[in-house]
C-alpha cells in the first residue's frame, strides 16, 4: 500500500504558488474542499486560475478566495449568486471563461484518462465554439475541446483511506471524481479517514492511484444554498 496521508491541510497545500491553475470539486457549495480553500485563503497565494463549476457565494467556497483577490481567472459553467464576483468581473479585474457544464466535466475526465481532446456537440453554433475546430460525424456537428492542464486538483470526499481511495456521498460527488488525477497533484480531503482495508474494494469510487495527498478535514460546515422543504401533512 502506497501511503498518501499527510499530516494536515498545511502539508496538503504545500507547493501551491502564485499563478498556478487549480481545480476545485463541488457543485454550488455541495462537495467543495472547504478545508483546502480555507488554507489557500490563509496562504495568501495569488493569481490563481480556478477550474470549478461554480464560484461559491460571497462569504463561502471560492467566494472567500475571490474576496481576497487571489483569483485571476475562473473557468466555470455557472457563476451566479455572488456579488463580489460580479463586481470584479464587470470591472475587468477578474477574467471569466464560461463553458458548458458537460464540457467542463469531460475536459477533466480527458486529463485524468490521458486523452488530449474530445469532440462534444455542446456549444456548436454558439459563441462558445468561436475559434474552435468543429467537425461533422454522421451528420451532426461537434466542437473539439481540449483536456485541462492543471497544477493542483482539490477534491472533497466522504470517506477515504491512507491509500488514497475515495468514496463520495450523494450529489456531493459531482465533479470531484472527474478531477482526481486530472492535475499534476491531486489533494483529497475527506470527512472521515478510515483504516486501510476498511473500504470495500468493490465500492471505491476513486482508486488511490489518482490521489497524491489525503487528509481528514478538521470540520465541515456543509452550507446549504437553497433550503427547500415541504411541510409534514
Amino acid at each position, binding site marked *: 500500500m502506497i501511503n498518501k496521508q499527510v499530516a494536515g491541510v498545511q502539508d496538503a497545500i504545500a507547493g501551491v504558488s502564485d499563478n498556478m491553475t487549480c481545480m476545485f470539486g463541488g457543485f454550488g457549495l*455541495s462537495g467543495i474542499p472547504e478545508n483546502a480553500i480555507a488554507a489557500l485563503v490563509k496562504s495568501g497565494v495569488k493569481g490563481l486560475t480556478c477550474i470549478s*463549476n461554480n464560484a461559491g457565494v460571497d462569504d463561502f467556497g471560492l467566494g472567500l478566495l475571490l474576496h481576497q483577490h487571489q483569483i485571476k481567472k475562473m473557468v466555470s*459553467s455557472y457563476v451566479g449568486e455572488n456579488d463580489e464576483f460580479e463586481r470584479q468581473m464587470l470591472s475587468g479585474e477578474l477574467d471569466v471563461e464560461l463553458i*458548458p*457544464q458537460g464540457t467542463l466535466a469531460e475536459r477533466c475526465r480527458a486529463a485524468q484518462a490521458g486523452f488530449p481532446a474530445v469532440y462534444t456537440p455542446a456549444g456548436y*453554433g454558439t459563441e462558445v465554439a468561436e475559434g474552435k475546430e468543429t467537425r461533422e460525424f454522421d451528420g451532426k456537428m461537434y466542437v473539439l475541446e481540449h483536456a485541462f492542464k492543471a497544477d493542483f486538483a482539490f477534491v472533497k470526499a466522504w470517506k477515504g483511506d491512507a491509500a488514497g481511495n475515495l468514496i*463520495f456521498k450523494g450529489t456531493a460527488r459531482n465533479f470531484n471524481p472527474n478531477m482526481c488525477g486530472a492535475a499534476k497533484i491531486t489533494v483529497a480531503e475527506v470527512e472521515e479517514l478510515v483504516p486501510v482495508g476498511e473500504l470495500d474494494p468493490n465500492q471505491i469510487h476513486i482508486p488511490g492511484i489518482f490521489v497524491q495527498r489525503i487528509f481528514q478535514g478538521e470540520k465541515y460546515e456543509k452550507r446549504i444554498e437553497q433550503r427547500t422543504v415541504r411541510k409534514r401533512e
Partner: protein
Amino acid sequence: MALDKNGIAKRIAKEVQDGYYVNLGIGIPTLVANYVRNDIEVEFQSENGVLGMGPFPFEGEEDADIINAGKQTITTLPGASFFDSAMSFSMIRGQHVHLTILGAMEVAENGDIANWKIPGRMVKGMGGAMDLVASAENIIVAMMHTNKAGESKLLKRCSLPLTGVGCVKKIVTNLAVLEVTESGFKLLERAPGVSVEDIQKATEGTLIVEGAIPEMNL
C-alpha cells in the same frame, strides 16, 4: 385567458410519457414534476448527479449532500442513484435522457434557442443548458410568449447569443403550444380563451395556422 406558470407546467406534463427519463430546467420546468400523471412511470434526472429525484425533504430532513441542479435540497425515490458529472452528461449526451424541458429568453422559428446571456448584463453562465440542447432528441421549451416589455420571444432569428442551434422541437407558452417545423412555428393549441389573433400578435416569427386550432385540454 393566458396560462400562469403552473398552467404551462400542467400542459407540458401531458408530453411526458410512460418510461421517460426527464431532465427539468430551473423555473417553470421544475413545476412540471408536480403535474405528471401518477399512473405512468417517469424518472427525473438532475445533471449535478442524481437519477430518481423525489419531492423536497420534510423540514429538518434536508441534507447538504443531496441537492438538485438548482441547488435545492431534495429527496430520492426507491431505485435512485448518484453518479459523477461525467457520467451525468453521458446520460444526456448519449441520449439516454428522453426529454429535456427548459426555459428560454428567445426561440427562433428554425429551432435556435437563446437562454444564457444578455450582452451588457451580468452573465451567470450556461450551466448544463448547452449540453442539454445539443444532445437531447426531444426538447420542449417552457416560457412566457412575450417578455416583460411585451416583445415576442418567438422570433424569426434570435437576437441574443445562442445556447444551441436548430434543437427546439416544441414550445409551450402562456398562450399556445407550438411545434417548430421547417417553415416556422406551427400553432397546435391555444390557451383557453386565447384567440389565434392574440397569438399571432405576440409572435414575431412565422406562425403557421392550419385549420381550426383547438384549445388546450388541461
